[in-house]
């Protein structure tokens, strides 16, 4: 036990003096996520707020062919830009970005409208562009309501009850709580938290294994009267310490960022104060030894700093897999999923953000799953360190 703490103290102090470790553990890892996240979310939110308030902009070609429709659009508050464009010109304008959505009314519109046969209009938009797609959706809805009001008028003139054309009345009830809606936007912050944990220990895990080999201090260390498990234990413990610091910094940064993100503009409240941050810390704590053991395990097999860096960068992406899986299949917190590390932390944090009740049993199961796997990896790492091949 004494040797384990000696190794821990030495690794901790030595890496505290290493600029690369400090930058990645205490700057890039914990701050990258919250900053990027804050920027993205505030831009996303301010955009959708602006869009809802702004009048729809529509470029209309051949408005003289449909004066009724043009009046209706203006009455709906649509900002019309008059133009004379052929179909090909309209395509080019939308593709080139000079117009968002173009409505073309062909000459035959008037004749067919009077004959009460479907009068054609062309709506030119780019569905791959999320901006113009929204505008096109709005234009489609307004055109649809114009069409149905004309249809009802025609039926009434012919003495038919227009309600006959509405056999089903759909009423939607949206049960999303204000916070629940925010979670859709905030869902991926959990990955940034786990990323910060791993980044915090990345360089220490490399330095204490592949680095030890590369600078030629490994053999002297291995020839000491110290159990290999103590060496490995001390190194993993030091990695854990850096990961905890990084986790704490990352959560603090998130708390700060959330103060500045204008979530309330959409009637959402994001529930990430100091109290929630502390709960997140507790939820992620069992993930720390797992991350440290995994990184030390992988780095122990590498021959050089560079090789270790390559493999561990891949390890940084491992927690994304279950999270991506969870969002594709929209998984909810379930006890059976709590044994899967990273997924369980993601689900628990999301539940807390949504103000859902979290069962204590699930928290314990999540911790148990992560710590169990961490112990297994530690044993495997120690076993590898006892092999002769460790000398390289």
């Amino acid at each position, binding site marked *: 036990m004494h040797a384990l703490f000696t190794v821990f103290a*030495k690794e901790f102090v*030595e890496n505290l003096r290493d600029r690369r470790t400090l930058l990645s553990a205490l700057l890039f890892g914990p701050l990258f996520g919250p900053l990027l996240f804050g920027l993205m979310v505030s831009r996303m939110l301010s955009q959708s707020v602006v869009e809802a308030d702004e009048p729809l902009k529509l470029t209309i070609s051949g408005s003289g062919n449909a004066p009724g429709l043009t009046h209706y659009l203006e009455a709906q508050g649509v900002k019309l830009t008059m133009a004379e464009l052929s179909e090909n010109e309209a395509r080019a304008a939308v593709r080139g970005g000079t117009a968002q959505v173009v409505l073309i009314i062909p000459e035959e519109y008037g004749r067919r409208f009077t004959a009460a046969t479907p009068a054609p209009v062309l709506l030119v938009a780019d569905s791959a562009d999320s901006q113009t797609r929204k505008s096109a959706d709005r234009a489609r809805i307004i055109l649809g309501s114009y069409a149905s009001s004309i249809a009802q008028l025609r039926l009434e003139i012919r003495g038919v009850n227009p309600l006959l054309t509405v056999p089903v009345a759909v009423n939607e009830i949206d049960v999303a709580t204000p916070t629940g809606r925010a979670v859709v936007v905030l869902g991926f912050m959990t990955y940034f938290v786990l990323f910060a944990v791993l980044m915090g220990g990345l360089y220490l895990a490399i330095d204490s294994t592949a680095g030890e080999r590369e600078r030629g201090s490994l053999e002297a260390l291995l020839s*000491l009267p*110290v159990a290999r498990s103590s060496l490995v234990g001390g190194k993993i413990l030091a990695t854990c310490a850096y990961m905890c610091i990084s986790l704490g910094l990352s959560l603090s940064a998130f708390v700060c960022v959330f103060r500045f993100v204008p979530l309330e503009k959409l009637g959402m409240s994001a529930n990430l104060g100091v109290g929630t941050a502390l709960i997140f810390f507790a939820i992620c704590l069992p993930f720390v030894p797992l991350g440290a053991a995994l990184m030390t395990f992988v780095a122990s097999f590498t021959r050089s700093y560079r090789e270790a860096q390559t493999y561990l960068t891949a390890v940084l992406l491992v927690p994304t897999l279950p999270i991506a899986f969870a969002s594709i299949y929209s998984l909810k917190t379930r006890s059976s999923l709590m044994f899967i590390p990273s997924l369980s932390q993601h689900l628990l944090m999301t539940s807390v953000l949504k103000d859902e009740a979290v069962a204590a049993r699930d928290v314990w199961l999540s911790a148990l799953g992560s710590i169990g796997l961490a112990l297994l990896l530690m044993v495997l790492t120690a076993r590898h360190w006892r092999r002769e091949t460790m000398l390289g």
Partner: protein
Amino acid sequence: MIEATNLSKRFGDIEAVRDISFVAHDGAITGILGANGAGKSTTLRMLYGVLTPDSGKASIDGIDIRGETSKARAHLGVLPHAAGLYGNLTARENIHYFGSLHGIGADLVRSRTAELARLLGLDSFIERRAKGLSQGQRIKVALARALIHDPGNIVLDEPTNGLDVMAIRSLREMLLSLKAQGRCVLFSSHVMQEVAALCDRVVIIGHGCVLADATVDSIRQASGAASLEEAFLQVLGDTEGVS
């Protein structure tokens, strides 16, 4: 006293060491001489227990290195071929780290470090970070690190590699003073002059076998050669790349 008895080691198809036996006595310097790849490092690594021999036994002061590894290692200081230091720790911290891992109390580590610093001349750079030290200074720190637990035996694997003339000279003096203190010094080298100048006894290794094990003088007499160089070459066979 370091004893190797019928040590053998294979790596896959390669027989690195075949049935090597020798004894290194206290108060004497024993040299292991051989070309690169002759099996010197493998032999030494089995002596300090980081490699397990396929057969045979190694013991330090009569303690089996496999059976009672920790106890045997407490009697043994090791300066491996790659004796790297931790660049971000000072020379003193490097030495203290190993002392602490040997389980020595902090006070004793401090006094031992002061003693070694005086003996090896570390005082002028002991508070400096190891990454700024010269090769000669590093080897001194590594030697102090290997001696922090006051071992009766010390094994050095090609300690003069990469050192300049001055550093080799001071290393030689250090080994002689260790011998004068009654310790058992065992070191390997592929430089013949070095072995001849320092050693009381030479074990010549070639192709994983002991080719000769005797004092320098008796090797010369037995071969009937006039100079040491010729004597060694005769023992090794001219093809061996000993410089």
